[in-house]
């Protein structure tokens, strides 16, 4: 009986232990992304009155550079929570949809997420704050600002523009007697030539969004879109079929391995002289002139991807927006305007070749002298177009990802694949 009593008491203790384990722990004075060792005292104490602004973005060398620049801000402590890109949206949504104890004040939003964030009222319209603070928006490129404007309300300040351009090895081209393609026909001819020599064009043809980016750029340059004038899905339009066929031809003359490559592998293939040229994203071009990463430092060249009707690149950028559930909206707005100011944007451009949306910087001699791909990127972005961002477009994009993978890896004619794709999404309308 005594043993039973002891065992019973032990069981009660176990139950209590489980509950205490589940209990909310006293929050530590650490922030996301910050590493603090137990018992370690921070070297610098934050003044009590200085607010903390937590920013959410993806991790990588660019984030590290940004942290260095943000450390100079003196009106608040800017804490960057940089996480793997693959998990960024989920983590942002979890914070933005929280009714209390939200993690973020500022979020770096991709244009394709913007509609969803606005629809759920997760990010704030900035018009009133801009008016109250007398902010001059004329320093920014209007095209990207327009892309962040819905029903007359601006939902963020765009920055870190990206687009696809041709990166090529000048020396390799010269030794093979090839010139930089300026028309679509020349592009295919050049790719075919190098394929016959055992290499080819490096393409981001892995099943994923990078392939869609290339398809979009071809589509936009052929004056096409996912939707017709009435908002119905039209992926068998002349432009769409042309884009699919050109993508198919490019895949045919691509270097082996391209069907498993995303942007980073394509850039690396050109940088490491595996491929003579490739379709590369400007966001990784800063590595081309880094002697530790690149074998083509002195021989890299850039050119816009030629279009059928015009040069219309797929414009891609990131937008700093204020979380609607931020506890410190005024400080967040002040920080937002500082991090997207000309001074800060220029510092980042010089540091890591970031393409900004500040008009003056595109002509700043100091900037243009150190960013060799700026002319090609500027030409591509001048009439750039944002990929459709509606929920319908997101559904189409997912199906298009698979269709483009089929085009890249099978012998099925591209028009047949596009016809099947059109059939599967024909009932969708642009919302």
């Amino acid at each position, binding site marked *: 009986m005594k043993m039973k009593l002891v065992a019973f008491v032990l069981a009660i203790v176990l139950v209590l232990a489980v509950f205490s384990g589940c209990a909310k722990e006293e929050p530590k004075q650490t922030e996301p992304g910050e590493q603090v060792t137990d018992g370690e005292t921070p070297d610098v104490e934050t003044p009590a009155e200085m607010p903390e602004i937590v920013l959410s973005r993806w991790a990588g060398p660019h984030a590290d550079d940004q942290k260095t620049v943000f450390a100079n801000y003196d009106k608040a402590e800017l804490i960057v929570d940089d996480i793997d890109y693959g998990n960024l949206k989920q983590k942002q949504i979890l914070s933005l949809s929280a009714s209390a104890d939200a993690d973020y004040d500022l979020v770096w939003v991709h244009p394709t997420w913007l509609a969803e964030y606005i629809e759920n009222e997760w990010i704030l319209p900035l018009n009133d704050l801009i008016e109250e603070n007398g902010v001059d928006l004329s320093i920014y490129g209007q095209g990207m600002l327009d892309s962040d404007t819905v029903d007359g309300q601006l939902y963020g300040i765009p920055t870190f523009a990206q687009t696809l351009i041709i990166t090529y090895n000048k020396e390799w081209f010269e030794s093979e007697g090839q010139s930089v393609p300026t028309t679509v026909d020349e592009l295919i001819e050049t790719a075919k030539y190098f394929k016959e020599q055992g290499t080819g064009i490096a393409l981001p043809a892995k099943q994923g969004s990078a392939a869609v980016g290339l398809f979009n750029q071809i589509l936009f340059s052929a004056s096409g879109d996912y939707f017709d004038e009435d908002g119905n899905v039209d992926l068998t339009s002349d432009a769409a079929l042309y884009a699919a066929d050109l993508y198919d031809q490019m895949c045919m003359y691509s270097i082996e391995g391209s069907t*498993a490559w995303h942007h980073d592998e394509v850039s690396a293939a050109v940088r490491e002289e595996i491929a003579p040229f490739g379709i590369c994203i400007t966001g990784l071009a800063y590595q081309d002139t880094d002697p530790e990463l690149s074998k083509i430092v002195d021989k890299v060249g850039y050119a816009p991807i030629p279009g059928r009707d015009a040069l219309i690149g797929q414009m891609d950028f990131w937008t700093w927006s204020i979380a609607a559930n931020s506890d410190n909206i005024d400080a967040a707005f002040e920080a937002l305007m500082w991090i997207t100011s000309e001074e800060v944007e220029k510092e980042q451009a010089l540091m890591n070749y970031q393409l900004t949306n500040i008009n003056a910087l595109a002509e700043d001699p100091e900037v243009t002298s150190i960013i060799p791909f700026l002319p090609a990127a500027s030409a591509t972005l001048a009439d750039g177009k944002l990929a459709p961002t509606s929920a319908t477009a997101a559904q189409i994009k997912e199906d298009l990802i698979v269709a483009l993978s089929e085009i890249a890896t099978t012998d099925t004619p591209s028009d047949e694949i596009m016809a099947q794709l059109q059939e599967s999404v024909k009932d969708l309308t642009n919302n």
Partner: protein
Amino acid sequence: MEKQDCSCSIDTSIGKKRKFDFLPVALLSPTILVVLIVMIIPLIYGLFMSFFDYNIGAKATSEDFVGIDNYISLIQDPVVWKSVKNTLVFTLFATGGDIIVGTIIAVLLLRVSTSISRVTRAIYTMPLLISPIVIGLIWRYMYDPYSGIIYWILHFFGIGLAEFPGVTGQSTALLSVIIAHWWQIVPYVLIVVTAGLVSIPKELYEAARIDGASEMKSFFRITLPLLKNVYMVILITSGVGSIMVFDLIYSLTQGGPFNSSISISMYAYQNAFELSKMGHAMTIAILAVVLAFIVFGIPFIKFNTAHDGGDR
């Protein structure tokens, strides 16, 4: 066998109202609580939410209730069935390979000297310390046709990307993921099987040898039957892990090319976090649970019942 003397407890209970014994309940309650909180409640919640059509982050309301529509679209979605097929193929070959390769290595390591086997076993088990997502990234570079070790080795046998497309080809993408999975999980099987092997009495092998049984015969007649319980543990742990495979595919192929390596979990993830179709994603997740139960749950229950019934 001698019967245990439990007459005292039987005698005292005769003619009396039997008291409810709280002790077993109290002892089991922490486990029950944990299982309830982290497994049963989320499962019921997932099942409930699969009848709604809502976006991630948004609150599902009565207007979002769609009944069994998500299940109808599940049946009509060809990618679901492709992902089910891929998942079953992956599970079959991944788990089968784990067991076969793990057993072979474990048996071979027991035959070499202790000092060598200790060092070798430690080296073999190193992949266990790496997370699956990192393993995916490691293998992504290993499969690189220009700088990866796989094609460097295959090159000596005259095999290039054309003969073995690896992650770039539809026919070999899933196999490439399975190979990476073996590299990760075989060490676990090696440890468990080794533990099983050393527990088999040596006398059985000596008796078999005296009776003239070959080594192969001893392996199939003694070793394998006595490892049955060990294999059941591996099937449950590694097998269920295989049927839920996500991170390896996510980091290695993203389900491509042309969905040739997409798994159920990967497709559920795409629906939930890339398309924000939470209701559809929930139904896919429920399908994954049902599949795991059919493939591993039912055999496990049967095994457990046989075990309790004196199959010892």
